[in-house]
C-alpha cells in the first residue's frame, strides 16, 4: 500500500518518486510500502503564537524536569518525593495523595478527564494540544531550535545539506547531534526519576548501582527522543499518532482552527509595491506560511490531517501583511462557517456553545464531580475478610464452635492506627488471635501506616448461640476516625451434632 497524502495546490510539486517509478515498471509490481520523507526546513517566525509556543515550551519542560525534585515530607520511612510512582512498594504518591493499586480507578478517571478536556478543547479550538503541549511537538520544536543554532535558519540549512562535506559542515552536524543526544539523554534521565527517589538515583545511576529498569528506560527514552524529535518529527504525527484520525470527528464547521481566509485572500498572486489591490485578494503568494510550517503543508489548502494548529503560519503571514500594508489575520484562528458566511457576503457568526461542546462540557463536569465525590468519601481504613475453608468450623470440648478467619486490615494513612476489631454476630461470641492466651468481645491491634496487616482470628460461639448451621455476622474495624465493616458468615454445623 502506498500512503499518498494529497498536497495539491501551489506547493504540490512533490510527486512521489516511488509512485513514478512504479508507473514506469508497470502494474504488475507493488510499489514500496513507505514514501521517502521530504525534508522540511521550517523558517523561524516571530509573533504572538511563536511567543506562546516559547512560553509553553519552557513551562512544560520545566514541569517535566523539575517535578521529581520537589520534596514532600511524609512520616516514617515513606518516600519524601512529591510525585513518585513506586512500583516496588506498589504506591503512587502525588503530593498529599497516595494511591494504592486497588484505587487505580482514580487514575482511570483522570485519563477519562484528560480525554474529555482534549475532546472539548478540540471541538472549541482545534488541535491546541497537538500544536502546543504534545511532547512530540515540544521536543521537536526544541530540536529544531538547536538545529537552527548550529546550521542557521531555513535557507542556510538547505544550502548546508546540499553542500558537499567539509569541516564546517561536519562540526555543525556533529555539534547538533551531540546536543540532541544530550537533550535526549536528559529526557530519559528525568523520566526515571519519577519512579525512584531522585537524589538517591542520580548518585547510584552514575556509579552503576542504579536499578536495571532505570538504565533500560533511560536508554529507551534517550533513543526515542533522539529519533522521534530529531529525525521522524512530523512523521510521528502523520503516520504513528492515532489522534489526527480521531480529531476529525471532534471538529465541525464552528470549531476555531488555523484557517486561511480564502474569502479575503483569493484570487492570490504576486503584488508589486504601490499597485492597486482592487479585484484581487490579499494573498501575495509569498509562501511564507508554507516555509514556516513544521509539518510541511500549505494551510491554504484548507483543514488537513497534518495540521497541528500551532499557528506559526499565522505569525509568518501577519509579518508579510504588515509589510505589504494589509490588515493582519489573513490566516487566523477562525471557523469554516465564518469564512463561508463572509465569502457569501453574510455576517460571520461564532457559536462556541453547540450541542457537541455542551455535551463534552456536561460530561466533563459529571466525571469531575464523580472524582471529587470519590475522593471525599475515600477512607484510609479498609477491611477484607477471608474465611478458613479447611476446616470450615471446629467443635470444642464443651460443644462450642470455633471459626477461623484471616482479616486484612488496610491502613492507607501515613500514621500507625490503633484499631478495634469486633465480631458483630450472635451474642456470646468471643474473639482472639491464635497466640493470645485469652479471648474477649473485641481485639485491639495496631495497623501499621501504609500497610496491609494480615490478622488471623478465631471466633468462638457458645452452644446456646448455635441456632442455625450458618449464622450471618460481620467484622467491624474502627479507629477514632474511620470504620469499616465486612459481612461474613459463621458456620456451626449445628445440623449434625454428634
Amino acid at each position, binding site marked *: 500500500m502506498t500512503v499518498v497524502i494529497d498536497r495539491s495546490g501551489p506547493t504540490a510539486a512533490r510527486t512521489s518518486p516511488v509512485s513514478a517509478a512504479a508507473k514506469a515498471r508497470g502494474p504488475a509490481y507493488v510499489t514500496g510500502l513507505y514514501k521517502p520523507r521530504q525534508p522540511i526546513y521550517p523558517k523561524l517566525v516571530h509573533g504572538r503564537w511563536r511567543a506562546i509556543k516559547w512560553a509553553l515550551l519552557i513551562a512544560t519542560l520545566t514541569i517535566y524536569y523539575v517535578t521529581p525534585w520537589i520534596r514532600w515530607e511524609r512520616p516514617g520511612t515513606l518516600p519524601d518525593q512529591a510525585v513518585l510512582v513506586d512500583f516496588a512498594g506498589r504506591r503512587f504518591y502525588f503530593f498529599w495523595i497516595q494511591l494504592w493499586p486497588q484505587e487505580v480507578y482514580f487514575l482511570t478517571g483522570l485519563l477519562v478527564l484528560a480525554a474529555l478536556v482534549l475532546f472539548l478543547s478540540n471541538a472549541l479550538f482545534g488541535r491546541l494540544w497537538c500544536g502546543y503541549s504534545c511532547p512530540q511537538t515540544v521536543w521537536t520544536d526544541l530540536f529544531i531550535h538547536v538545529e537552527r543554532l548550529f546550521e542557521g535558519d531555513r535557507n542556510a540549512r538547505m544550502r548546508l545539506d546540499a553542500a558537499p562535506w567539509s569541516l564546517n559542515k561536519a562540526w555543525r552536524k556533529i555539534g547538533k547531534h551531540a546536543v540532541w543526544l544530550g537533550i535526549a539523554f536528559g529526557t530519559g534521565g528525568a523520566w526515571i526519576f519519577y519512579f525512584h527517589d531522585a537524589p538517591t538515583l542520580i548518585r547510584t545511576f552514575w556509579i552503576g548501582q542504579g536499578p536495571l529498569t532505570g538504565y533500560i528506560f533511560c536508554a529507551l527514552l534517550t533513543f526515542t527522543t533522539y529519533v522521534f524529535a530529531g529525525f521522524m518529527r512530523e512523521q510521528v504525527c502523520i503516520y504513528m499518532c492515532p489522534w489526527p484520525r480521531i480529531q476529525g470527528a471532534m471538529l465541525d464547521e464552528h470549531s476555531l482552527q488555523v484557517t486561511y481566509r480564502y474569502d479575503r485572500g483569493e484570487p492570490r498572486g504576486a503584488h508589486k509595491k504601490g499597485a492597486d489591490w482592487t479585484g484581487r485578494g490579499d494573498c501575495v503568494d509569498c509562501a511564507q506560511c508554507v516555509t514556516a510550517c513544521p509539518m510541511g503543508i500549505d494551510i491554504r489548502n484548507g483543514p488537513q490531517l497534518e495540521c497541528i494548529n500551532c499557528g506559526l503560519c499565522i505569525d509568518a503571514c501577519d509579518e508579510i501583511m504588515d509589510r505589504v500594508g494589509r490588515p493582519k489575520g489573513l490566516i487566523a484562528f477562525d471557523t469554516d462557517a465564518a469564512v463561508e458566511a463572509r465569502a457569501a457576503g453574510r455576517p460571520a457568526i461564532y457559536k462556541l456553545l453547540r450541542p457537541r461542546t455542551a455535551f463534552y462540557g456536561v460530561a466533563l463536569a459529571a466525571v469531575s464531580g464523580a472524582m471529587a465525590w470519590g475522593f471525599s468519601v475515600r477512607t484510609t481504613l479498609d477491611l477484607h475478610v477471608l474465611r478458613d475453608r479447611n*476446616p470450615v468450623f471446629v467443635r470444642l470440648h464443651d460443644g462450642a464452635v470455633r471459626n477461623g478467619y484471616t482479616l486484612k486490615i488496610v491502613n492507607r494513612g501515613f500514621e500507625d492506627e490503633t484499631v478495634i476489631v469486633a465480631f458483630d454476630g450472635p451474642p456470646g461470641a468471643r474473639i482472639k488471635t491464635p497466640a493470645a492466651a485469652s479471648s474477649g468481645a473485641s481485639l485491639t491491634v495496631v495497623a501499621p501506616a501504609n500497610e496491609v496487616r494480615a490478622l488471623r482470628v478465631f471466633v468462638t460461639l457458645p452452644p446456646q448461640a448455635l441456632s442455625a448451621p450458618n449464622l450471618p455476622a460481620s467484622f467491624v474495624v474502627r479507629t477514632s476516625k474511620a470504620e469499616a465493616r465486612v459481612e461474613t458468615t459463621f458456620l456451626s454445623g449445628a445440623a449434625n451434632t454428634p
Partner: protein
Amino acid sequence: MSKRESDEVTGVETTGHEWDGIRELDNPLPRWWLWVFYASIAVAAVYWVLMPSWPGLTSYSKGILGQSDRQAVVGELQALTAERGAQAARLRTASLDEIERDPELQAYAQAVGQSVFGDNCATCHGTGGVGAKGYANLRDDVWLWGGELADIHRTIQVGVRSGGPDARFSQMPAFGRDQMLTPAQVDDLTEFVVALSRRPADVAAVRRAAPVYVAQCVACHGVKGLGDQKQGAPNLTDQEWLYGSTRQAIHDQIWNGQGGVMPAWKDRFDPETLKALAVYIHANAGGR
C-alpha cells in the same frame, strides 16, 4: 524436466514444472530470510561452544561456560539456606514461648510449620489438621497428651506408641475380645459411657455398670470420666470422640481397645523445624 523458460509477465525464470497449468516462479529466497538463516547457524555454532550440547560415549561436551542446571539448583539451595540462616538461628535459640510472642518469628515459624505439616502430617491429620476417625483432631481444644506448646512439642518429638524409649504410650485393654468382661458387661459399660457424656442412657444398665467402671476404668479415665493427659487417657465427658460417639463405636472401642501409632519425628527434623511445627499446630488449635 522441461527446458527453462521465463514467465512472460514478470520475466522471472520458472522452475520448469507445470501442474494443472500453474507454473512456479524461480524467485530467490528473500534476502532477510537468508540472513536470519545464516545468523541462526552462527548462533547455533556459538551455542555449541558455550553450552553443554553434544552427547559423547561416556559423557557430554561441557561447554566453556560451565553451565549446569544441577549446580545451579545446589547453589540456589545454599543461597536459600544462607538467606534463612538468621531466622533459623533465632528459631533454634529462642524458647517456644519467645517464638510465639515475637510476631515476626512467629510468622516465620508458621510458614515453616505449614509447609512441613503439609508434607509430613497431613497424611493422617488432614491438610487442615482436623484429623479423621482414629486420627486426632489438632484444631480443637481436646488433647490426649496435653495441648500446651511444650506438650505438643514433646508429642511430635517422641510420637505415640512409636516404639522409642521415650514414646508416649497408653494402652486400652480389649475388654471384650480378650474376655476380660462378658458381652453383657460391655453392653452395660457402653450405656455408662453414654451417660458420662451427658446423653440419655438406660438407667438400669448404668447402675449395673457402675461397679465395673470403678474396677476397670477409673485408673485411667478417672472417677468422673475426665481422663488423664499424663497417661493419654481421653476425657469421656466431652463431645470429642477419637473413634466415634455412637453407641456402636463406643461398644467397639471397649471390646477391641484400639490405639493408634504416631511416628517419632525428632530424628527426621532438625530442632528448629520441630519448634516451628509445634508453634504452627499450637496456633492453629487456638492456643492454650
